[in-house]
Each structure stands twice: as C-alpha cells, then as structure tokens.
C-alpha cells in the first residue's frame, strides 16, 4: 500500500510511568480518526480547530471514558511530516498511553515503523541531503535489529502456534487451488464441510492469540524482568544501575520501596520491562504489605526474575518464601554486596536447595559500585538471543504490530467463514484464506513468496 494512503500512529515520547506521554498520529485520516475518539467540553469537533492550536478534552473508547488529554492540531503541510498531524498529550503511564494508541489503531491508523515519521517528513519534501542518508541508514538498521529480535523472541510457543495454523491454512488453499487447476483430478464436493470445521478451529486459535494480547500484563514490547529480594538487598540500586539514573529511592532503611516501580530499559537492543518490587518479607505495616503482595503478583508474571541476595548475611525464612514464590521461573541470582564479607556461596545454595538452584545462573555483584553489571547484561543478552527467554507458560503477543497483524488474520478468517455460510464458490474462499496466511506470516516475519505454488506441487499430484 502506498504510504500516503496510510495514517500512522505511535507513541512519540519515551515509554515510562512519569510525566506526559504523546501519541502522534499523521496522515490523511489523522483528524477524522482522532475526532472519533476525542470529545471537547464545548462540543466542538477536532475538524473545527485552527492549525497549531492545543485543546483540552477527553478520550473515549466506544462510550467509555479513558483519559483527560490535551490535543494539538497541525494541518498539512505545516507539520513535521507535512501531513495532517494530531498529537495527543495524555497522562503518561504505560497502560493509559498504550490503551490510547490501541484505540487510535482500532480506528484505522497503522502503527508507525521505526523512523517512519522522519521518513515521511523526508518523502513529503523536507529535503536535506544529510538527512536522506541518515533516514536510509536508519530504516536499514532498525529493520535488521527488530527482525533479529523478533525472530529470536518468537522461537517460543507463539511462533509454534502460528506456524502450525499457517501450515494448515496453506494446505487447505493448496488443495482448493489444485482442484481449481485440475478439476478432473480433485473433487471438492464434500470439502466445504471439512473446510468449515477447519476455519472454525483457525478462528478459535487466532482469537485466543488476539485476546492474549489484551490482558494488559504484556502490553508493552519487551521482556518482563522482575527484580525480587529481601528488603535492603540492593534491588533499587540494581534498577538504578541498569536504568542509568536515580529512579527508585535508595536508602539504608529496609523497606524504602513500598510499591513496585517499572522502568523500560533498552539493553543491547533488547527491551526489558524491569519491575523493582518491594522487598518481600512478612510485614505488619499495612502500606508495605500491599507492596509486598504486589511484588508476589509480579514475580508470578515475570519472564525473567533477578533475585538479589544480600550475600553478606545468611539465608533466612524470608529467602525461603521468596524461593517458593519463584520456583518455576527463569532466575538469575545476584550475590550482591560482594564488597562485604561473603556469607553465601553458590555451592552451598545448590546443596541446600538442589531443585531450585541447580538451573540458576549466579553472578557476584556489588550494585552500589557497579561491579558485575556487565556480566549481568551479557547474561541477559545471551539468554535472549539463544531463545532461552520467552514469555510465560501462556502465549502472549508482546508486540502491538503483531497484534494488529493477528487482528487482520482474524478478520480474513471471519470473511472466509462468512463466504462459507453464504455458499460462495471455492475460489472465493482462497482469497481471504491467503490474506489470513499472509497476515499471520507477518507476525513471525515470514513472507509469502512462492509458498502456495510450492505447496501445491509438493502435496498434490497434479497434471496430465
């Protein structure tokens, strides 16, 4: 599709829990899309606003209130992209920001490619020679990285499910096409009932995939990394050290982090959602207790657990309860405070809790002065690119783009079902079946190419 027909949207600010986030929408339908979800107090519509003005209002999603926002309007060609552009300034927060983006996408925008706003600015005539080269390099670099990351990340269950649905769809299409091509050889008279069963099951599977993207926990791109440990073990300084800034409050007093703190960190191109949890211990303090309960919840949902141990003091009951909490998880154990006298050794731990610590990775660190951090980063990187790290037991779609593609596949499959219910001839069915196949391929980064022709020839004996 040509770019000028597509309205794109993306979160334009860094995704974190602080301050204001901006969702930028650019393209010929930018105004009409945002207008559908924006309500100004005076009842004015977005289309009535002057260019370069900012307005107060609310975002609604099919009647239900989402957030209070400021919306800036830029009319073509006086915008960054030289297209009609709307920027929605919302109340930060990962969940709300993502929710609004999701709504914008549902109303017809397409998630922007990396660097796409700049690319459009360029294509629409903001010409600058040095920029042209930069844009080309960026397209190239981002594409390589995201392709590699998504391929590796997807080596898990998600891609397995998608691959198997795709293979089945392709087989059905190939059969139909063989019969169309060689009607005296292949009989389709009973096939539509069989196909109906197949399509219903594809819809069910794909619907499940689609829903899994909706449950909120994995709405962000990246791996959920949860930092757990007893109070004052050094979790917050670890987070600060990873994020490269003072984010969590670090004090000497045990129990300072009373809630969970989230941070998105880009580590060698891998996106980590690091959640620092309140120290887990039995507590009477009500506020802290809520924090502890949340920490437990997070620990259960994490893809990767970093268990920070204060190596200068021996294990106690609190450690045992942490261990029981994270038993079945991928765990990196940090033996922290290596600058102090060490009371805990990996060998002893393996002996004491053989089932748990046998498969853990141990790294000796001193988060206070950054010792061992490089090793930790390498370790995470290695786990990611070797495919060790993937989502939890259940399959989640972690990426919005993927979700959109899965949504498209679902739409196509429903059209197939509709065509089947309407008793449409078989050649109409393959059109939407192939669209579903293509969309699903997009999720796992596979192009269609000559798949169908290959399948026809390899599975069905054709020709005279």
């Amino acid at each position: 599709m040509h770019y000028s027909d597509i309205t794109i949207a993306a979160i334009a600010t860094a995704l974190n829990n602080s301050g204001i986030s901006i969702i930028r929408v650019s393209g010929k339908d930018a105004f009409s899309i945002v207008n559908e979800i924006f309500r100004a107090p005076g009842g004015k519509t977005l289309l009535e606003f002057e260019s370069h003005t900012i307005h107060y209002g609310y975002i609604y999603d099919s009647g239900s209130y989402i957030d209070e926002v400021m919306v800036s309007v830029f009319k073509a060609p006086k915008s960054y992209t030289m297209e009609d552009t709307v920027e929605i300034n919302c109340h930060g927060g990962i969940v709300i920001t993502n929710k609004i983006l999701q709504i914008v996408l549902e109303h017809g925008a397409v998630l922007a490619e990396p660097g796409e706003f700049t690319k459009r600015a360029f294509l629409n005539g903001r010409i600058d020679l040095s920029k042209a080269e930069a844009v080309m390099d960026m397209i190239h670099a981002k594409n390589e990285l995201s392709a590699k990351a998504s391929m590796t990340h997807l080596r898990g269950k998600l891609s397995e499910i998608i691959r198997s649905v795709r293979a089945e769809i392709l087989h059905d299409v190939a059969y139909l096409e063989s019969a169309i091509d060689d009607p005296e050889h292949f009989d389709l008279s009973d096939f539509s009932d069989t196909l109906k069963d197949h399509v219903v099951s594809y819809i069910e599977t794909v619907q499940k995939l689609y829903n899994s993207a909706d449950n909120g926990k994995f709405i962000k791109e990246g791996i959920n990394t949860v930092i757990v440990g007893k109070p004052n073990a050094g979790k917050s300084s670890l987070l600060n050290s990873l994020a490269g800034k003072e984010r969590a409050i670090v004090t000497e007093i045990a129990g300072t982090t009373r809630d969970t703190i989230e941070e998105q960190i880009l580590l060698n191109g891998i996106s980590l959602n690091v959640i620092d949890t309140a120290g887990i211990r039995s507590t009477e303090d009500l506020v802290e207790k809520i924090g502890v309960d949340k920490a437990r919840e997070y620990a259960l949902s994490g893809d990767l657990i970093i268990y920070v141990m204060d190596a200068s003091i021996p294990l106690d009951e609190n450690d045992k309860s942490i261990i029981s909490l994270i038993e079945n998880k991928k765990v990196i154990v940090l033996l922290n405070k290596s600058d102090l006298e060490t009371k805990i050794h990996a060998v002893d731990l393996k002996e004491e809790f053989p089932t748990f610590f046998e498969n853990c990775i141990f790294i000796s660190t001193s988060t206070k002065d950054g010792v061992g951090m490089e090793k930790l980063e390498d370790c995470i990187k290695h786990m990611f690119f070797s495919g060790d790290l993937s989502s939890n037991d259940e399959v989640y779609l972690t990426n919005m783009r993927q979700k959109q593609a899965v949504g498209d596949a679902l739409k196509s499959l429903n059209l197939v079902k509709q065509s089947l219910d309407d008793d449409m001839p078989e050649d109409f069915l393959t059109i939407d079946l192939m669209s579903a196949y293509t969309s699903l391929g997009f999720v796992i980064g596979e192009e269609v190419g000559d798949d169908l022709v290959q399948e026809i020839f390899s599975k069905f004996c054709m020709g005279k």
Partner: protein
Amino acid sequence: MSRIREKVDVCVIGAGHAGCEAALACARLGLETVIFTVSVDSIALMPCNPNVGGSSKGHLVREIDALGGEMGKNIDKTFIQSKMLNISKGPAVHSLRAQADKSEYSREMRKVLENQDHLTIKQGEVVELLTVEDLEHLQDDNSIAEYERVSDNIQIAGVKIFTGAIYECAAVVICTGTYLNSRCLCGESITYTGPNGLQAATHLSHSLEKLGIELRRFKTGTPARMDKRSIDFSKMVEQFGDERIVPFSFSTDPESIQKEQISCWLTYTNEDTHTIIRANLDRSPIYAGIIEGTGPRYCPSIEDKVVKFADKERHQVFIEPEGIHTNEMYVGGMSSSLPEDVQLAMYRTVPGLEHCKIVRNAYAIEYDCIDANQLFPSLEFKKVKGLFSGGQFNGSSGYEEAAAQGLIAGINAAMSILGKEPLILDRSESYIGVLIDDLVFKESREPYRMMTSRAEYRLLLRQDNADLRLREKGYQVGLISKEELDYVNYKKEAIQKEIERLKSVSIGASKTNQEFLESHNSSTLKTGSNLAELLCRPELDYEMLAQLDPERPVLSEEVINQVSIEIKYEGYIERQLRQVEQYKKNESKKIPDSIDYDDIPSLRLEARQKLKSYRPVNVGQASRIAGVSPADISVLLVYLEHRRHAKSNGDD
C-alpha cells in the same frame, strides 16, 4: 556459400505457437516479415497434448484473442470436443478447454500464415544472429571478417540461415521452443532431434552465447500414442463434451460451431503399474542421472508421480483422440522416459490397455532455453537491442503460454520498429501480464506454467471479460479493428446502464413480491429493496427476476452475464479493485534507467546485486524480485525522492 541477401523488417525464428502469433502480429501491422522453420510441415505443431485451453490457459487464449491474436480463432475452426471447466465454481475460474484435431489445427494455422499479406514462410535453420557491427564486416561471400567488437551497444541487424543466405532486418523474434540443441530420451535410446523426431536446431545456441546471452537446460516429456483399434474402451469411462459449445474467440459466432463431438476416455493406473515402474527406475534416464535438464513439477512423468506420491494407489489416465482422421490416441497422465519395453509393460497393466499397440513411444526432451530475467517486460533482450523472444525458449511451457508471449514479443518488435511505446500488460489487467511479469522478475527453476493461483487479482481477470479488459489495447496496437472496438464499447455501456437500472428499480414489500420470494425459497422483505439487492441473493438469478421487472430491456446473453457477475460478487470485486489501486501506485513509480545502485550504500548487498541484474523499470517490479526486502524498497523510495529533488534543484 549462398550470396542471397534480402532486406525485410522482422525475422521470426520458429513457427510454433509463439512464432505464428509473433509473425502474424508483425505482418498485420504492415511490416515485411519472414518466419523461419526447420520444416514447413510442422507449423503450429502440437507435439504433446491434443488440446488448447484448460484452467488459466483458457484465460490466456481469450486474452490473445482480445488483443488480436490467432490461437482462439484457429481452435474454434479445428476442435473436436469442447468443455467449460470449473463450471460449479466461481466465474473467475471457469475455463474453456477444447480437444483439437492436431493436423487440422496445424493445417488451418498454416493456411492463415500462407495467406497473410507481408508474411513469407521460409524453410531453413537460422544459424546465426547478426548485429549492426557484424554487417559492417560482411564480405562478398556472406561470411563475416573477423573483428573486435568495440561497442557495448549491440543492435540486431539480421539473421543467417544454414545455406548462408542473409536476411537483414530491424528486429528478430526468437521462438525456438524445444528445438535448440534438443535431445530426446526413451530409456537408453537417445536421439538428437527436436520433438516428434523433427530436426533440431543446433547452431543458434552458440551464436546466442557469443552475444552474451546465458542459456540453461530444461526438460519436458510426453506420453505414448496408441492405436485406437488396440484399446478396449468398454473398461473406461466416457468423457463427453459440453452440450452447448462456447467459442474461444470473441469473433466466432457461437451458432457456427455447434457440432457433433468426439469423446475422451478415463481409466486408472494400479498397483501392478506402479510395481513395474519401481522395478525399472534404474533404467529411467532421470533417475539414472542422464537427464541434466530441470523438468516441470505440474506435469510430472508417471515415474515421478509414483515416486513422489508413493501412497497414492492409482493415478488418472485420459485417453484422448489426436484427430478425426487418425487412429492415434494420446495417453494423458502417463508421460515417461522409461525404455520402450518397460513402457509397453507398464501401459498394458492399465484397464483397457491390456493389448495396446504403441504407435509412438513416450519420451523426454531436453533443450536450451533462457532465464527470462535477461529480458525487459517488453520481451526484448536487455543486452541486444531489437532482439525479442517468446515461448518455451523463455522458460515457459504450454502452447497457450507460448502463443501469449509470441504475440507480445511480435507486437513489441513491431512497436520498436514503428517507434511506438511497447505494449506491457500488468498483473492487474491480464493473465498475460502475470505470466510475463513472473517470467521476467521471479526466479524459476522449472518450465513455467500458468495457474489461476498465480494471478492475485483473478476475480477481475475472468475469461468472460477478456474483451472488456483488452480489446482497447489491441486497438491501440493496431490489431483490432474500429468495428470490433466499437462493439466492446457498446457492450461496456450496456452493462453499466443495466447495473444502474437494476439498482434504481425499487421493490416494495407488496404481497406479490413477498409471494414471489417465498416461491423461490428466498426470505421475505422487511423494508423496501431494489432489483440489484435481490440479484445479490445466491438463490435468485437475473432470469427469475424478470417477473418483478416488467420494464426490462432486451439484452444479449453476454451483457446479462456480466451484469449478474458484477452485482452478485460486488463486495469481493470491490475489495480486489482496492488492492489493484494500491498495486498500481508502486507500478507508477518509475525507476530511471540511469540509476546507479552502487550509489545507494544503505541497500543490502543481495538487493543491490539483484536490482542491478534485473533492472526493474518501476518500484512495483523491484518489490517482486526475490531477495529485495520491504526495507530495501523503503530505502529505494527515499533515494528516488532525494534524486528527484536534487534534480529539480539542479545539483545532481
């Protein structure tokens, strides 16, 4: 050495299905044309299956006809059975197939060629292609003095035939089919001949290589022909033609071709057949590694079928007449390169063939051809100006695929001489466009066969509307008359008017109307509707609705058919039209010929190499080349935009 030198406009090498179309197109456009063949008796020969059309191939024939080609008219004159395939499926995949009387087909086509103004038939093997530079070094005895080629810009200037005679011309169309350096294999017995024992063309390959054209080797095959008297048809199932025969050509009056038809017959292989084949695989030239060429997967030999689909208990065998005046029967589905004795044993296991006598053995044929990515979509060689090629030489297979390319190559040879724009059909307007685009831009490792699944917009590319799609192009080229164009325009208008009328005739929920619907098992109306909406219902058709439509004008069957399809499948058609709109945008983004891909560092190496070798003329074509990723296309777009602006600012 002969010293004959003639001057013509176009030389066509080969008089098969591609060559005939190419030569007729050039001659009909007023250019002096010579068509060379190794044997005048083999003009428009059908050396394999005795039929024309079939799934997607029938579409090609219709398109050839719409553009002013000959194949459709010729099969209408010479068919002995006709069948519309896929009639139970959607209109997009209905496909016409006719059994031909082979010798009649060949004779009729020869008659057309012989009586065509500006066209000369010449028997003789073309041995050399001559360039402008070659002619500059021509000596009195028609030999060429040795010289060093100085120019990279090679321009064709003529051909030399085996006798030494030279035909100077401005364009050459190569349509050598399977004749180039061909050899036929039947088990251990190998002959260096073209199909059917005809003389092979053994010199031209060398001349092509000298011009820098790369050749490759493909293989195909054909089954045995049997004596009808030795076949027991009582053990087979009779296959009849359609009761009402539909012509291929838009110019043929359907009434004129309703005639008695000849049947085909269906039987099956069985476990005994397969056992014989398996036991003798070591004597098959393919499995023994004697054949180097790549064969087509869609038309596998019976050996291939048995090996690759080992779990299939039986394969279909169609026994088809080769003509009215012959007893030879074609054994469809059992092509083979096994030795003669194995063939006979294997065929005799098939019910009805127990006592069969083989007239001609099955054989495989290997031949020189090209990878068509050496051609522009106009089918002109990138390396040699004025040199065009079509047909099996381009790596395709099938009579219809050949004829389609021959027609386009001929038209474009003519266009180049007449100084006009080449005719390039795109994927959204024709199967021919899909065929050529695939051949020129996609990698293929086997002879290419048309399939409806290759056409992404097939809902729009129906065999029933080929005239609506292409007549005008044929007229612009000069192969379609004004009257023929006027008729199509009248038809288009009538269709449009009737669709609009049906949408505007409202149908209320009156008692009569509801009763009518009930009587046709159609749900009754809750609110007012119109005729078009009712026509959308699967259970209703145009004829039934006559009862509710007293004002209906009198329209031809073909108009009614188009109206019904357009209305019934409107939603699907609209979706495809939207896809086409998107497709056209990239097709319209031209890539200048002067582009230097080395100037774009962000392109991946593979993409750069591919783009350099394929030299696509627009972004759409570039995007279909294997090895060019969407990111590369983005980079290319950014570069083209940059270049455009740099140019307009004068600082390129």
